[in-house]
């Protein structure tokens, strides 16, 4: 109760004047009625969030970041749109928004001013009244991205969202991202989370992606928060018929990181791909919870999550797949592979397949092991030194996730960052 009170008092101190006033008020009321999950909850069995919720946070002010720093955070070739947030606050100078008649690429606050009702509606609809981190997010919402692509638009260049956290303070930041992609459209979104100082801030993020019929979305996320920071993300994807959504998510930073990914396949002939990579060191905890809901026939979902854990780091993978009665001819594949580099590192992996249709192909597999000694020997027997052989095998391991990033320059840059993280 005390811990919840702290968040309520943050709400009380925040200005609540804008168009979202009522929605926020409702959200904080709902928040006060919900409870934070404990490890007794099945969904939070492996992840203790007490260190996150028992801290006291400030709401952070802006901080200056140089253009050069931001440029360094852009992955691959010059992108089209760049949205920059520093400590959660939209930085217009550092951002680069290509004006376009039809496509909206904006921060949420800016979109609220320009498009009012439409945005308010989205905020309301994407607030999950049963999820405490979702209502907390709406109640304390600061900003986020609002992207809307109309029908029949191919957005050629990736849209970059750069989030930088840099503060002496222990701050909390709640970002809400809304991405709405119209029929037959295509977009590529690249989110990055970077940090300056190593402080213990808390990013509570929700992202909602609406993928209309025959739309195609690639969504790349690179998380490099401070080693003391906490990040809880809730990613909800709603897909219409014939659409494709591919997420490639890389977690390198953070003390406790929890990714909730919920994919709702609402019609037939949908493809959903969730790929994740996590590298943990020290005492990091990285928890990926995915839930794929197959409602209609002829849909495919593919999940591949791979982790390399060192020191006392822990990984969690919980992959739930629900195949409803109507969802005949579903293909749902899931795999979680882990390499442990230390005896004290560990992983909890739990597949949950709930299948109510009879004509389906579902599989899941999980592996936990060390670097393949047979492969090491083979490489060394060809004159490749031990260190280089190690690095080649790790690169191969992570490459199987990163290969799903379609653009060469983006993929190569990601690979470089991941490899230099070892």
């Amino acid at each position: 109760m005390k811990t919840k009170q702290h968040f309520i008092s943050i709400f009380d101190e925040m200005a609540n004047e804008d168009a979202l006033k009522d929605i926020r008020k409702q959200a904080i009321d709902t928040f006060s009625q919900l409870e934070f999950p404990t490890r007794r909850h099945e969904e939070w069995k492996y992840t203790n969030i007490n260190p996150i919720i028992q801290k006291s946070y400030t709401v952070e002010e802006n901080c200056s970041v140089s253009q050069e720093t931001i440029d360094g955070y852009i992955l691959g070739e010059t992108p089209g749109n760049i949205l920059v947030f520093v400590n959660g606050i939209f930085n217009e100078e550092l951002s680069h928004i290509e004006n376009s008649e039809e496509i909206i690429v904006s921060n949420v606050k800016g979109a609220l001013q320009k498009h009012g009702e439409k945005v308010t509606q989205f905020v309301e609809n994407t607030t999950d009244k049963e999820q405490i981190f979702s209502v907390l997010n709406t109640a304390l919402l600061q900003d986020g991205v609002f992207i809307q692509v109309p029908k029949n638009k191919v957005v050629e260049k990736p849209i970059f969202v750069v989030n930088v956290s840099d503060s002496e303070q222990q701050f909390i930041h709640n970002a809400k991202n809304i991405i709405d992609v119209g029929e037959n459209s295509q977009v590529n979104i690249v989110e990055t989370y970077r940090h300056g100082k190593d402080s213990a801030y808390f990013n509570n993020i929700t992202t909602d992606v609406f993928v209309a019929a025959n739309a195609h979305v690639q969504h790349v996320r690179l998380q490099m928060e401070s080693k003391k920071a906490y990040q809880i993300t809730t990613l909800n994807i709603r897909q219409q018929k014939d659409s494709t959504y591919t997420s490639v998510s890389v977690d390198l930073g953070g003390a406790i990181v929890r990714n909730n990914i919920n994919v709702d396949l609402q019609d037939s002939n949908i493809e959903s791909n969730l790929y994740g990579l996590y590298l943990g060191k020290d005492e990091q905890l990285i928890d990926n919870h995915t839930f794929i809901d197959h409602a209609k026939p002829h849909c495919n979902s593919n999940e591949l999550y791979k982790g390399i854990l060192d020191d006392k780091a822990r990984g969690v993978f919980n992959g739930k797949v629900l195949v409803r009665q109507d969802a005949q001819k579903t293909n749902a594949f899931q795999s979680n592979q882990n390499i442990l580099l230390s005896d004290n590192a560990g992983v909890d992996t739990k597949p949950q397949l709930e299948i109510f249709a009879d004509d389906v192909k579902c599989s899941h597999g999980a592996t936990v092991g060390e670097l393949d000694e047979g492969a090491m020997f083979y490489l060394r027997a060809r004159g490749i030194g031990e260190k280089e052989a190690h690095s080649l095998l790790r690169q191969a391991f992570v490459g199987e996730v990163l290969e799903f990033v379609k653009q060469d320059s983006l993929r190569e840059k990601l690979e470089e960052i991941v490899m230099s993280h070892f």
Partner: protein
Amino acid sequence: MLKIKNLHVSVEGNEILRGLNLEINKGEVHAIMGPNGSGKSTLANVLAGKEDYEVTAGEIIYKGEDLLEMSIEDRSREGIFMAFQYPVEIPGVSMINFLKTALNANREYHEQKKMSAREILKLVREKAKLVEVDDEFLRRAVNEGFSGGEKKRNEILQMAVLGFQLAVLDETDSGLDIDALRIVSEGINQLRGEDNAFVVVTHYQRLLDHIVPDFVHVLYNGAIVKSGDKNLALELEKEGYAWIKEEAAAAS
């Protein structure tokens, strides 16, 4: 080039090689035959430096140096090429990247300039003709999903690309159909030279029809119990190993 004296090797406490002697000079081809489990692959693995094999007695001198003191990678860089009986699959590492890394690691060791990606591709393509594999093959992950024949051809390709002074071929012919055998043995023949030597481990005469050995040795119970010329292989083909086993039993 290679002198093995009184070699004793144990694996997990079991003595597999029990006083093996062998001497190999430049330009020679030695065939090693012997029943299953006699220790042929053990010998090959010890030469390559595999860690699970414990040398409890004896010595191996390679080019005048103590081979057992050399690291796995240095043995390769110094010219020992081991064509494995069971090459491992390495998902995620493409053939071309693997060959590039290996080639440049070898060059760096010999203080030669690294080769560019383009130079390497040219070299590899040329050698690929030897074992009749194409560019598609080079893009695949090392041995992953390769057929038995492809795996063996791949070993020969690596041998051709990386070069060698002493090649140890562990059953490179096993499981090959007649076409694959022809490709592999022709590849090997083209790589034969006055300055290199081969140890060919095989169960079958048909490989030795293509690669005619100077010496044939029979490995039995962890030691070489009989040596001869190519006719010994023909005799083994006809008679099997029973008489060898009897002779060995009588001797001990």
